[in-house]
């Protein structure tokens, strides 16, 4: 693949600098005033009191030296936190704004969808908007003509195609807009979270369409999203950005785990719940969870085969028998919940403080980052299960697999939970 002929986009040392503070006073007079004041060494009359005068060197690098080579037919995902520079990169690539330094070389016709329905005119009919939007995205009238039937079918709006789009529901509007974009003929497609439109069925249809055009026609796709599951479905390479730099470039799973492992806060070891809010006044009335601590760890990272050990502090405000602990474990990116079987561990008497220690077998969990909230459950005198306390706080932990045996579990492909082995029945 190292052949230069196969390169679709080559980015070299791309930088984008923004000046901080308000740019200009907005009026010519204001700018002249500021300029004159600075010339005489006086204070700028247009600055608010206490505001710092931003000098020329106070700048912000939205992109700080990006180097990236994208080959033809690659479907590359770009992920990163807000402000990491993803959108700036896409804006420069789609030529909406220019770079401060560096260069981008592009081979092939490129279309960008930074927003669905750009340039739609509300007064025009669906059909007229298809032509207009197509032209804005770079299609000629002849190209639209040859595809109009496909576009209308894809949009599922045939019935309303000659009605002004201002009468459309918002769903129909985005469907129509996406249908136009999906039928672009360009070799390179740039998309900024546009798949987050329409209902579930339509989202799937869009993803399938994108997959289809990429695989069968060898198109190159650049896709920015915060939705990891669409990144997984669509992309075969992924770039993680942080503070205007590329911090990872490689396969999708690794990229996502770096991204989610990097989500701004560590896996803490101990949690204090004394001031944590409860979703209901009644909660914490009977028993009150005061704290939670992972034992013998300085980071909540567990090898799959080791047992998770932790302690839970409880203030008993009433005497309750047979307390049970319930964890609802969720994964950071796919919201598949897992719970464990309940088992009574203790009864408490009013007015006492307890600290209980536990051990939890997590070998059934696939490697990944998880979080849960602890619940204290017990039966009331009618035999119904009741939640006694439920602090609103996510406790994070990461499961790693140092020595994968057989297949190595990947949450996205195999799910988060591995059940017991399937037993062979000997005859």
């Amino acid at each position: 693949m190292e052949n230069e002929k196969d390169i679709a986009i080559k980015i070299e040392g791309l930088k984008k600098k923004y000046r901080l503070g308000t740019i200009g006073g907005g009026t010519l007079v204001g700018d002249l005033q500021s300029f004159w004041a600075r010339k005489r060494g006086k204070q700028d009359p247009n600055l608010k009191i206490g505001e710092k005068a931003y000098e020329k060197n106070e700048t912000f690098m939205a992109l700080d030296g990006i180097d990236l080579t994208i080959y033809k037919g690659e479907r590359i995902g770009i992920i990163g936190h807000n402000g990491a520079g993803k959108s700036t990169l896409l804006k420069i690539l789609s030529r909406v704004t220019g770079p401060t330094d560096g260069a981008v070389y592009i081979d092939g016709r490129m279309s960008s969808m930074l927003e669905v329905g750009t340039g739609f005119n509300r007064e025009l009919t669906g059909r007229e908007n298809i032509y207009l939007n197509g032209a804005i995205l770079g299609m000629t009238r002849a190209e639209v003509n040859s595809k109009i039937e496909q576009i209308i079918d894809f949009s599922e709006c045939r019935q309303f195609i000659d009605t002004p789009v201002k009468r459309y529901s918002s769903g129909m509007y985005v469907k129509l807009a996406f249908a136009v974009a999906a039928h672009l003929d360009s070799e390179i497609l740039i998309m900024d979270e546009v798949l987050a439109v329409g209902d579930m069925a339509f989202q799937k249809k869009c993803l399938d369409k994108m997959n289809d055009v990429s695989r069968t026609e060898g198109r190159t796709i650049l896709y920015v999203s915060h939705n990891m599951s669409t990144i997984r479905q669509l992309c075969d390479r992924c770039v993680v950005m942080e503070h205007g730099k590329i911090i990872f470039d490689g396969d999708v799973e690794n990229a996502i785990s770096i991204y989610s492992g990097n989500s701004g806060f560590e896996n803490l070891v101990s949690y204090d719940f004394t001031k944590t809010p409860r979703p209901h006044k009644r909660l914490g009335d009977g028993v009150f969870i005061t704290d939670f601590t992972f034992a013998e760890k300085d980071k909540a990272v567990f090898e799959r085969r080791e047992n998770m050990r932790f302690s839970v502090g409880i203030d008993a405000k009433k005497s309750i028998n047979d307390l049970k602990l319930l964890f609802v474990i969720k994964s950071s990116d796919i919201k598949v919940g897992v719970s464990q079987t309940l088992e009574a561990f203790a009864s408490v008497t009013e007015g006492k403080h307890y600290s209980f220690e536990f051990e939890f077998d997590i070998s059934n969990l696939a490697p990944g980052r998880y979080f849960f909230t602890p619940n204290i459950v017990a039966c009331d005198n009618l035999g119904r299960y009741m939640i006694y306390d439920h602090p609103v706080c996510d406790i994070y932990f990461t499961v790693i697999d140092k020595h994968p045996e057989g297949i190595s579990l990947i949450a996205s492909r195999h799910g988060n939970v591995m059940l017991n082995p399937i037993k062979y029945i000997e005859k």
Partner: protein
Amino acid sequence: MEKQWTAVIRPKRKLLDLNLKELWQYRDLIWLNVGRNFKTRYKQTVLGPLWFVIQPLFTSVIHMLVFGTIAGLSTDGVPRYLFYLIGSVSWGLFSSCLSATSETFTGNAGLFSKVYFPRLVSPVSTAITQIGNFLIQFGLYLIISLVFFLSGNKFSVTWVALLTPLIVLQMALLGLGLGIIISSLTTKYRDLQVFVGFGITFLMYLSPVVYSSRSIKSHGLYTALMLNPVSPLLELLRHGWLGAGSTPWMFWGISLIVTAVVLFIGVLIFNKIEKNFLDTV
């Protein structure tokens, strides 16, 4: 072997790299924009397309009352209504080109921030729309002048009328040139936007729209008036279709040069601004 790239994005573009070829590639978009402008202009209005002609018709009536009847200004012996109608129709072309294109960046910021196409597409489509608008109004003028002619009013159509297409084009280009200069500057300084509105009215009184240049006796004043690049154009049109006014050929020459320079500077500035306007607008 050096690879041939379809496009290269760099921080600074050469000053003269105007990329007019790309504008041509997007000609379909220009026409669709023009079509959109016409279709959506008077949607959901009772009088609909009639609005295209109501404006100049009524403006001319007002002009006729105020400047003709009350002020008693001379119209060189041609029917007053026709004199004012051709004046306001042709002035309308220039002023609407100027005011509509001067909002290119501020009015399209949302669109420009989301998708790339040669930005000149917008002002060019606007100017073409205004020419179309003018043609409708001018057609109306021709009908009315025929009515006047058949009912025995005296005026003459001269050979200068043959220059009309050229003059109309020049008028639109002049408005476009000034408009894109202003739109490029308004990305940073909003003052200009306020200025446009009253500047156009101001300029109208410095052009022979509501009065005849012949009624100006002072030579110096006449020269000053004719140095306004719009004036010779109005004069020539009026001379061609009514036989009134003068034929200031030399001033037309100057006006042509001014138009070319304004347009050239306009495209240069526009081209320079369009790349990064998003960061300043």
